[in-house]
């Protein structure tokens, strides 16, 4: 075991990329990956076994084996869907966060920054207002389309300037478009009660009260995004050296931006569509992963996904156990637990250079 090297003078920046020199990086990565998988398996089991309705683990197993025994649908109607959703949404948000932070070289970037959440929200509201689309599946399609459209708009706005080489214009365009969309969304919501009611139900980011309707579509979307993310990993490693250096290394900047944006949009949209906007996972998971596997995006992206799924599921389980007859919403647990974990990470390991 290595002893944490607290109190030593800060190392020069380049060294910070490899979290610890005392341990061969490759071995450390494998150990971390194994640990992450084990932790995720634990969270998954806990998510099936534990809940605000106290059913014995044995009964849960019986009901899992025989759905007919699950008369009140607590296992198949609540725990299974939220566990599956938690895995998918957490993985997608964590991986999207890693690509996001790599693309913007901003450690505080979160998938919302390119207007994905704002675009999805606006589209959901427009769908309800103009088409009367309140079904789960219609909402999902609206969220997907809105997320993609928002990203394209952000990309075009940034590209109209000469802004694609630096991440800053993208982030600014994203913020501007997000704000505009949010304003239009509020206007639509505030001027129509029916829209407000439908929007209020969707906008609460939660794994509770959701079903697996439309899950296949959303998951397909996220998987496609993951493919783009994998294709983007090498470029992200070059981009970490700065846009000029990346170009010098033969990187096609526009191409890598487009692929990165596609990855972020599809993964976030898939997640947001089924669970509503959930914060903090996309921000925290990449940092947790970076502690374990360093900044090589070929490792970082999948590990951020695992970390995201673990964090989301674990926080959801904690929330279920805290509320007595009720539950503490996962978003609240995420901000408390995630916030504390985040501070620890930042304190222990200086914010990894991007």
């Amino acid at each position, binding site marked *: 075991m290595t002893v944490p090297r607290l109190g030593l003078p800060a190392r020069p920046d380049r060294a910070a990329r490899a979290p610890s020199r005392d341990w061969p990086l490759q071995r450390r990565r494998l150990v971390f990956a194994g640990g992450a998988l084990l932790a995720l398996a634990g969270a998954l089991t806990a998510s099936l076994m534990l*809940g*605000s*309705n106290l059913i014995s683990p044995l009964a849960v197993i019986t009901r899992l084996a025989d759905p007919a025994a699950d008369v*009140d*649908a*607590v296992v*198949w*109607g*609540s*725990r299974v*869907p939220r566990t599956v959703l938690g895995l998918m949404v957490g993985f997608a948000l964590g991986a999207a966060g890693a690509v996001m932070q790599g693309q913007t070289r901003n450690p505080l970037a979160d998938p919302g920054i390119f207007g994905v959440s704002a675009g999805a929200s606006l589209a959901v509201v427009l769908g309800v207002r103009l088409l009367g689309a*309140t079904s*789960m599946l219609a909402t999902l399609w609206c969220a997907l389309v809105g997320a993609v459209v928002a990203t394209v708009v952000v990309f075009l706005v940034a590209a109209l300037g000469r802004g694609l080489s630096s991440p800053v214009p993208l982030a600014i365009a994203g913020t501007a478009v997000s704000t505009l969309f949010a304003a239009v969304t509020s206007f639509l919501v*505030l*001027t*129509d*009660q029916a829209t407000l*009611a439908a929007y*209020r*139900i969707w906008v*609460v980011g*939660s794994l*509770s*009260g*959701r*079903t697996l309707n439309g899950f296949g579509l959303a998951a397909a979307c996220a998987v496609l995004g993951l493919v783009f993310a994998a294709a983007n990993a090498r470029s992200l490693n070059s981009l970490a050296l700065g846009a000029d250096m990346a170009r010098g290394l033969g990187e096609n900047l526009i191409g890598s931006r487009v692929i990165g944006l596609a990855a972020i949009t599809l993964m976030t949209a898939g997640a947001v569509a089924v669970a*509503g906007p959930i914060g903090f996972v996309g921000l925290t998971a990449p940092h947790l992963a970076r502690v374990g596997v360093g900044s090589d995006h070929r490792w970082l992206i999948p590990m951020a996904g695992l970390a995201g799924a673990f964090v989301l599921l674990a926080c959801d389980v904690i929330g*279920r156990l805290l*509320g007595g*007859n*009720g*539950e503490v*919403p996962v978003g609240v647990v995420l901000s408390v637990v995630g916030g504390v974990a985040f501070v620890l990470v930042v304190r222990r390991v200086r914010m990894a250079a991007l």
Partner: protein
Amino acid sequence: MTKPPAARGAATLLAALLAAATLTSCSGGSADPDESGEAGVSQYTGWTYTDDAGVTVDLDQRPTRIAAFTDYAIGLFSYGIEPVAIFGREDVATDRRLKDYDLSDVAIVGNNYGEIDLEALAAAQPDLIVTGIYPTDRDGTLSLEDPYYALADKEQQEQLAKIAPIVVIKVGGAGIDVIESLNALAVSLGASADAINQAKAAYDAAAAELTEAAAQSDLELTMIYGGADGIYLVKPMDEPTTELYTSLGVKFTDLAPDGDYYWDIYSWENAAQTMTGDVLLVFTEGYQEADLLAQPTFASHPALAAGQVYTWADAAFDYDSQAAQFEYLTTILRDSEKVA
């Protein structure tokens, strides 16, 4: 608002003369207590009112231009007092509770909780602003450090107070007390005793109907707000309206009368087993019948399966509004069957 002392003296003199004239004109007629009450008010030069928060407002004359939160505006309207400005927590122009009243001369200065257009409010030149205050616990504790109901924060409250003095109706404890508080304010603002008595007659008749319907039925009503987190169950003795209906014999699901104030939350895993009612009263702002049916753990709830689901919107605390709620509940009780 404050006149120079000389002017005030003149006003006092004038009022005294008028009072004397009124008394003289009355002396020959029947000694109607309401008329002598009128005389009593006009003898008094100013207008004094102590609201439910214990705040006393002193004005030189009875305020005639009233700005009010929708619920209290409805109450004042029903007694014949037309407000000059209304702010609501939902779109005032489309609020169905206001559909019987003419809003053409009323300035709508807010359509969302805590959002009040101060300039528009000031332009309406109110003499008095009416809103509510909710207790923070079962004992009726009022926290004056917190902003009043419908206001975003203390700063906004201070800005409102610069436009006109604010009085509040306390919405807590027994429902009849809230109604009487609103009535007292309406009377103080000039509502005629006739208007109130007439409304009370209709209210009493509706209350008798509801009492009878409740006595003939053993149905349990469950008042809920559904959301992604689960079901919020209103504690019937903490909400003044349900307290009022309970006092008439209506039975509500009351799982934990003690504990947290106002409502408890039950997760979707627990909801079906805990909600014991025969009829679901579903708040218009949360999950509706279709959303409840989409919850696998709740879809087979007996009341839901029997289609005994009714939307519920809180009504204002005046006789008319509550009489309408009595009639709605009477219909629900008569049309529903025991399922749980």
